[in-house]
């Protein structure tokens, strides 16, 4: 009797701890994050309130008014337009450029590996600092790029300080920072493709364009989708580059969602409008991220399967 007793006790203790163990292990991480979920719900509440920091006494629920006002608010439509334009331009150009570079570097060789590592460096520079670097290079009085522009006849080309070229300039900085991201993902994808289809195509003398469009691209699609969605999610909420470069200016040329929300909160102290803007942005990114996660999981399973 005594012996079974002593045997059973650790066994049952073991069972309980085994059941509780995963909860105990993940609880601390969870608690830290719950602290972050509370402000999220606060933001939802703010977005349904008339709330200005300058007039705290007038704070009250106005329900959907912040959102309804957007319909007739040209500033909101400008924000939406600039955000979509920025995200569309950067992601398209980065995808084309990244795919091109990945194809150039596809073959494993010392030179190609060295170049692919070098090209990663811009990605490792803080976007805000990258914007600062480009700001120094496009300075009208001494910037090397302003000088080069004047050599090809573009005198007084004002880069980020002119409303006509500001978007172009920040898109250029974004391309400089983030093209390596797409490049490295697609390069890893290209190098992991099975070789048999390509060997078979080479034996049959299939034209190169056919190989690219009918074999390479379809097999690379999961990687392209994941990289594109990943970038799209980041790009639609770009803040660092634009804020560091122009603070949303000149005028309202570059007031993308997060920049506009930041300025609304700290400059015009309109908390309600700022929160409503961010909730709309969140709705966009939430939808995108659900599509993204599906693709990402498929790719992840494949990578784990190969391991």
């Amino acid at each position: 009797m005594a012996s079974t007793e002593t045997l059973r006790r650790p066994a049952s203790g073991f069972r309980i701890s085994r059941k509780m163990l995963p909860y105990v292990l993940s609880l601390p991480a969870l608690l830290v994050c719950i602290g972050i979920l509370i402000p999220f719900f606060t933001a939802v509440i703010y977005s349904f309130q008339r709330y200005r920091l300058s007039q705290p006494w007038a704070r009250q629920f106005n329900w959907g008014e912040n959102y309804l006002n957007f319909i007739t608010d040209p500033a909101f439509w400008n924000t939406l337009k600039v955000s979509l334009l920025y995200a569309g331009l950067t992601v398209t150009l980065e995808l084309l450029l990244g795919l091109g570079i990945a194809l150039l570097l596809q073959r494993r060789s010392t030179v190609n590996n060295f170049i692919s590592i070098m090209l990663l460096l811009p990605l490792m520079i803080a976007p805000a600092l990258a914007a600062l670097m480009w700001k120094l290079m496009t300075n009208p009085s001494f910037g090397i790029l302003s000088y080069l522009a004047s050599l090809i006849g573009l005198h007084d080309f004002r880069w980020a300080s002119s409303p006509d070229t500001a978007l172009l300039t920040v898109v250029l900085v974004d391309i400089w920072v983030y093209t390596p991201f797409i490049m490295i993902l697609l390069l890893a994808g290209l190098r992991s493709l099975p070789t048999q289809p390509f060997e078979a195509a080479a034996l049959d003398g299939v034209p190169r364009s056919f190989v690219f469009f009918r074999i390479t691209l379809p097999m690379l699609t999961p990687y392209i989708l994941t990289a594109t969605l990943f970038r799209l999610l980041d790009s639609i909420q770009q803040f660092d580059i634009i804020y560091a470069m122009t603070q949303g200016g000149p005028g309202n040329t570059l007031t993308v969602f997060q920049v506009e929300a930041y300025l609304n909160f700290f400059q015009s102290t309109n908390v309600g409008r700022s929160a409503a803007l961010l909730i709309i942005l969140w709705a966009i990114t939430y939808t995108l991220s659900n599509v993204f996660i599906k693709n990402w999981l498929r790719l992840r399973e494949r990578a784990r399967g190969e391991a």
Partner: protein
Amino acid sequence: MDTMSPLERTLRGLALTLVVVFFMFPIFWIFLMSFQTNETILAIPPSIVFSPTLSNYAALITGKLQTAAGTLDIAFMSNLGNSIFLSVASVAVSLVLGVPAAYAFARHKFRGSEDIAFTLLSFRFAPPLLVLLPLTQYFQWLGLSNTYLGLIWVYQLICLPLILWIVRGYFEDISADVEYAYRIAGHSWFATFRKIALPLAGPGIAAAGLLAFIFAWNNFVFALVLASADKQPVTVGALAFVTSSGIQYGQIAAAIVLSVTPTLALALYAQRYLVEGLSLGAVKG
């Protein structure tokens, strides 16, 4: 593939050269600029031949800048210190929180485990200002505004999902049989975790930590919203340089060089793991 015509070879070489020039030139140019005085920077046409000076770095490191108007104090070294402290502490905290959680998610399929893991992942993709702006008010009530503790907490938004998902993948790659064998030999759960699982996933944990460090270091918006001058990291500090009067362009360049060197060095060191880290474990390099 090997049958490239000379023309194609030349074109490929040319295209690659253009790519390398585009991506490397800004780094090279800012590096040069950091060794120049205002006179050589402002010279037209710009020249890469000049007598280099260390005066920009000297001014940043001593924190004293001699100008015609007198001595100017530069707090850049404290920004650099803040960056180091915030990044190291944030990564340490998220390793302590994230590695056990990653182990739990990899080894046990418990109720709600996937939901929790995906909720953590979704933080990576939500607009940071959505949380940050209400948080400024909560931090005032809690007395956390402009404290390292508050910042480190918020930095978990970047570090924790990264560590959780990468390290989870590494734990999943380890066969559970080794752990069972060790458990059957009479060792406790904790001993198994410490002596078997942790060492086997060690390289992955180190890589995830390095990447989380890079992302924490490069973060801009958290400190912009939540920290004032004495707690700001280099990303925010360097921006303030541009607007402050009396600072010379060479010093801005030198500050940028000092700010990006740690992440560039770490990236080169951990480049083998970058692909996996950047894709949150979805693609293996």
